[in-house]
């Protein structure tokens, strides 16, 4: 068990199809993200970013390789966890391009839903949700309908939701795509704060030129292979 590593993958490959029509979407991918670190995953369309995110999110099965989460091996040429649903619920946070909040739940319950699904009592789940909403500066909208929030507020609520079960890793799929520069940088600032505060490893898939300079470390994916690069690490203050 390697406790110092948030998420670590080695030689991860994913092949779609078989025979002549087989496509190798990921080829021996390696990646490590430490707790509290925010790394960028960039690359052109069709390079394999989404496939890698789906493998990391345990929604599709890699073809081979090894993956550890919080030091525990979760994949070693086969899933080592019997219930991937519980793995996703308790140990992986997701932030999407659009917030995809549940429209029939208010802001608090959108965040509290995850702890509730994990079996926490409603009161405790809501208290945790409020704590996160406060940290993300949207507690004043706690009882609001999601449709009443601005785009930036919705994205902050979706970040709170991703953090609700205190997962060791958060996967963010183009979280700043619909936002202007100022709001995109604000989201990155929040992600960095949350990564530090909750010691979460965050992988941000992005095309967004506005935020790429903010990463200290970047994985560039091309033709299914990752190339680690040093980022500018521009200050977000």
């Amino acid at each position, binding site marked *: 068990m390697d406790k110092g590593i948030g998420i670590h993958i080695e030689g991860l490959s994913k092949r779609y199809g078989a025979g002549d029509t087989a496509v190798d979407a990921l080829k021996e991918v390696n990646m490590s993200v430490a707790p509290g670190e925010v790394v960028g995953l960039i690359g052109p369309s069709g390079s394999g970013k*989404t496939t890698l*995110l*789906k493998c990391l*999110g345990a*929604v*599709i099965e890699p073809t081979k390789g090894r993956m550890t989460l919080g030091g525990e091996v979760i994949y070693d040429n086969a899933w080592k966890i019997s219930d991937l*649903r*519980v793995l*996703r*619920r*308790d140990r992986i946070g*997701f932030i*999407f*391009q659009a917030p*995809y909040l*549940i*429209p*029939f*739940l208010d802001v608090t*319950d959108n965040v*509290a*839903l*995850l702890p*509730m*699904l*994990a079996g926490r009592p*409603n009161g405790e789940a809501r208290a945790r949700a409020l704590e996160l909403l406060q940290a993300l500066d949207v507690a004043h909208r706690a009882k609001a*309908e999601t449709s009443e929030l601005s785009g930036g507020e919705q994205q902050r609520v979706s970040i709170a*939701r991703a953090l609700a079960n205190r997962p060791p890793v958060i*996967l963010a*799929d183009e979280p700043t795509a619909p936002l202007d520069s100022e709001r995109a940088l604000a989201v990155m600032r929040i992600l960095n704060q949350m990564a530090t505060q909750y010691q979460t490893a965050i992988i941000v898939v992005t095309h967004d030129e506005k935020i790429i300079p903010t990463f200290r470390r970047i994985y560039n994916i091309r033709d299914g292979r990752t190339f680690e690069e040093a980022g500018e690490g521009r200050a977000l203050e």
Partner: protein
Amino acid sequence: MISLAGRDILHSWGKFVLTGLGLGLLIGVTFTMAGVYRGMVDDAKVLLNNSGADLWVVQKDTLGPYAESSSIHDDVYRGILGMPGVAQAANVTYLTMQVRKGSTDVRAMVVGFEPAQPGEPGYLVAGRRVTRGHYEAIADVMSRFHVGDRIRIRRHDYTVVGLTRRMVSSGGDPMVFIPLKDAQEAQFLKDNDAIVNERARTAANPALNRPGVPGLLDAINASQTSNHNVNAVLVRVAEGRSPEAVAQDIRRWKHLQAYTRAQMEDILIAKLIATAAKQIGMFLVILMIVSAAIVAFIIYTMTLGKIREIAVLKLIGTHNRTIAGMILQQALGLGVIGFIVGKIAATLWGPLFPKYVLLLPEDAARGFVVVMVVCTLASTLAIRAALKVDPATAIGG
């Protein structure tokens, strides 16, 4: 854990209530159809109850007097009265016809009865009983006649002297009671022109107008213009006697058909309204299928509108059974709203129907179970669609 279905219903309650209202009106129609059938059965039972008879004596080999025509002589009742076990026997006639009032007419069953005998209306809600031998009538309130109205039956005018209630034929037509002699005349007597023509034809027939037989032609003419037939004899058996035993004696010794109450009920319900019952049964089945299709379509459409949310829910670890439960609860919620609206609607519009609509609490209970089962089945399509949603669709374009 919060109720996702409840929250979704509260979030879009307007759409939900309007959909439930539409479904409820359909369920209301279904309840009403069932009520129409129950009303027909009840009408048949009331018809038998109100006649006050234990036995119906009719023409041999017929299912008279309600299901088939029956004609027997009006003096037969005397012989029946003399039989052991018979307490009362009375002639009755039944004729369904248009009864005119002014320029309008009402379809009614005209009943010829003898006062204070079986066949007389049991109670009045207005006016008095028939006290004269001719041209007075008692009408069921459903005929919309009033005390004092003048109504026309065949060639004669009658005064409505009393009103009764729930006295209808098995077809739901209101009954109009008139004295037996008038009813016999109304049923069998021809108009004046037809009588004159008939007399001329008889006089021209050498077999019936023999010069050597004086009085023959007059006797034949008299027999043609008078009528001594009735449709049935209603019998009340003496205290402590078995109606079946008395009926057997009548069948054996009088060469007539005698039906007990149970047999008459069987004729009216199992035979007379059987086709109508099947018709209504078909309607009920079709309405149930249409309701199921509507619920399935609505729930399926609502689910398709939430595919992205369902993908997100699955991705963040929501159990399939939680998602299936959410859809099922919504379908059942829709069913509950539909049931309540349907029950209220049927109760409100039932009395406006021209025929009696009987809404039984046990039918409502059965209907509730059927609605819940139909909604459960209808939700399976949407649940299947939701369970097929790949959580991976929440990630990426």
